[in-house]
């Protein structure tokens, strides 16, 4: 173990050196964005070592999945990273569809992409609002949550739920989008870039903001790779990697967008990257609206996908399939897949093992927050305790995602 990452070793055991003290931060602390507990070993105001302590939100979702039918796992995936439910839904659905060898219709893929980008906006808005609030800019929070509310209303319109949407199904979508939905998304997407300008006018050139973020909590390119960082944290350190562009899924190859990268590796760079990502996501939403294909929203796989209600009233087979899928699930051929998607936080990966029955043998989530939490070590070591809050905010962790 190189000494650079030595703080992964215990902190508490080294008390006794007269110079340092150990400070406990969290798990109930407003700026840790959940139930993150940090043990900080301090020399004056300088952090000598830092150790994150997680697990307070561990609910054993991976174990629970093994006892559910494949389609029953979808609502569980919402609750892993509760700020981007659609991304989790998508990753899980894609993984199971890959196991089944199920090709889903273009329209469903495009709606999925559109909703995923709205989810990214939703998640980044929460991040920006709370991150700015941590550092002392109250107003941004109010504006961000105003727009987030619009997105949540769109989610409610399409799925009936604001946060735990569970809108994606294995083989497509739960329902066709309601009338007038695309018009409302269009109105939102047209107006949104001006809102981003608004946030930027409050922060980007604000001397207090730049003073608290520029040159703070730096992380190098090499460390970002070695620590397995992904998403905005890695791109802020010059890692030019985005699964949407580099290993496209769900028709992302048909969209035209840039992957913003900054090389400074500080809190400000991560801020710049994510704000630019919001602009790019808005573009993707616009493209999806402009070119939305017509067609079905579910794959035509009667043994996997629930039939339409109309068909059930007229066709015997549809009724039988419906009964069978609901009561005994559908079987998935034995095998294993790993499906990674670019969540707002980085690489969200689902590793699913099937043994040929109706329940997954093993579901493992490679959650981006869990890996990105590693970044707290090089970010904080040797720096001031006052910057810890800025560092945590810039990693953009969701503790549900860390602990699962």
């Amino acid at each position: 173990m190189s000494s650079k990452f030595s703080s992964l070793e215990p902190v508490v055991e080294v008390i006794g050196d007269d110079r340092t003290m150990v400070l406990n931060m969290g798990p109930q602390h407003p700026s840790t964005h959940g139930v993150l507990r940090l043990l900080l070993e301090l020399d004056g105001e300088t952090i000598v070592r830092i150790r994150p302590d997680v697990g307070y939100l561990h609910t054993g979702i991976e174990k629970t999945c093994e006892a559910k039918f494949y389609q029953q796992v979808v609502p569980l995936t919402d609750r892993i990273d509760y700020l981007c439910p659609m991304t989790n839904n998508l990753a899980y659905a894609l993984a199971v569809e890959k196991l089944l060898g199920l090709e889903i219709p273009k329209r469903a893929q495009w709606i999925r992409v559109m909703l995923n980008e709205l989810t990214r906006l939703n998640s980044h808005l929460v991040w920006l609002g709370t991150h700015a609030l941590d550092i002392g800019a109250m107003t941004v929070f109010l504006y961000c949550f105003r727009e987030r509310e619009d997105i949540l209303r769109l989610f409610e319109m399409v799925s009936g739920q604001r946060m735990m949407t569970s809108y994606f199904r294995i083989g497509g979508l739960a329902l066709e989008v309601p009338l007038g939905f695309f018009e409302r998304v269009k109105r939102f997407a047209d107006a949104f870039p001006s809102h981003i300008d608004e946030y930027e006018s409050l922060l980007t050139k604000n001397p207090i903001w730049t003073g608290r973020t520029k040159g703070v909590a730096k992380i190098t390119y090499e460390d970002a790779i070695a620590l397995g960082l992904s998403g905005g944290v890695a791109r802020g350190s010059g890692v030019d990697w985005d699964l949407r562009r580099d290993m496209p899924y769900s028709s992302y190859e048909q969209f035209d967008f840039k992957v913003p990268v900054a090389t400074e590796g500080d809190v400000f760079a991560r801020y710049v990257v994510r704000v630019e990502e919001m602009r790019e996501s808005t573009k993707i939403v616009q493209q999806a609206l402009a070119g939305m294909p017509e067609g079905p929203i579910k794959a035509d796989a009667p043994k996997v996908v629930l039939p339409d209600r109309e068909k059930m009233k007229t066709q015997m087979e549809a009724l039988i399939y419906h009964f069978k899928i609901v009561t005994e699930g559908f079987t998935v051929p034995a095998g294993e897949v790993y499906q990674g998607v670019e969540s707002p936080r980085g690489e969200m990966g689902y590793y699913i093992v099937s043994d040929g029955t109706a329940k997954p043998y093993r579901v493992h989530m490679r959650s981006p927050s869990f890996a990105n939490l590693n970044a707290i070590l090089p970010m904080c070591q040797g720096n001031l305790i006052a910057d810890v809050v800025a560092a945590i905010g810039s990693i953009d962790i969701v503790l549900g995602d860390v602990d699962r």
Partner: protein
Amino acid sequence: MEQADQERGLVTLMAWKPAITNLEELKDRPALNRLLSWKAEAVTGAKFDRDELTIWLRREFLCEACRLLRDDAATAFNFFSDVTCVDWYPEEPRFEVVYSLLSMSRKERIRLKVKLNSDDPSVESLTELWPGANPFEREVFDLFGIHFNGHPYLHRIMMPEDWQGHPLRKDYPVEGYR
């Protein structure tokens, strides 16, 4: 007709080709090729299924094989994505530790597996190669009871320190009394 159906998304169950498990047929894969030319006895099997390559390794060679895959320009698996475990209770060897590596320059993933018997579920730690493997290995230790030799701080991460048992093992019940 089929083309039109495909565009409308009606032809849905594309049958995957059967998995290829013959090492000879998979020799053109850079990762497997490199490992075989390095130490043929390190590789116990390979599978190409659903566009994903899996290689089974003998556990004593895991760390060196990963170093090779990471540093060799022909493979360049520079990014450690994930490590987890699958419990095949009551079969033996019971555990399969599953590593997922990513090559950013070649845009390719690979899955490495190590089989472990239940009487000695231990494997080398990869924290030397990728410090980022640290919490992932702690998680596998916590939930499966796999020991990672050489890990700097192998303690429970999700469950409380004084917890008994390893919840993700198959002989650990989902609900009720243990």
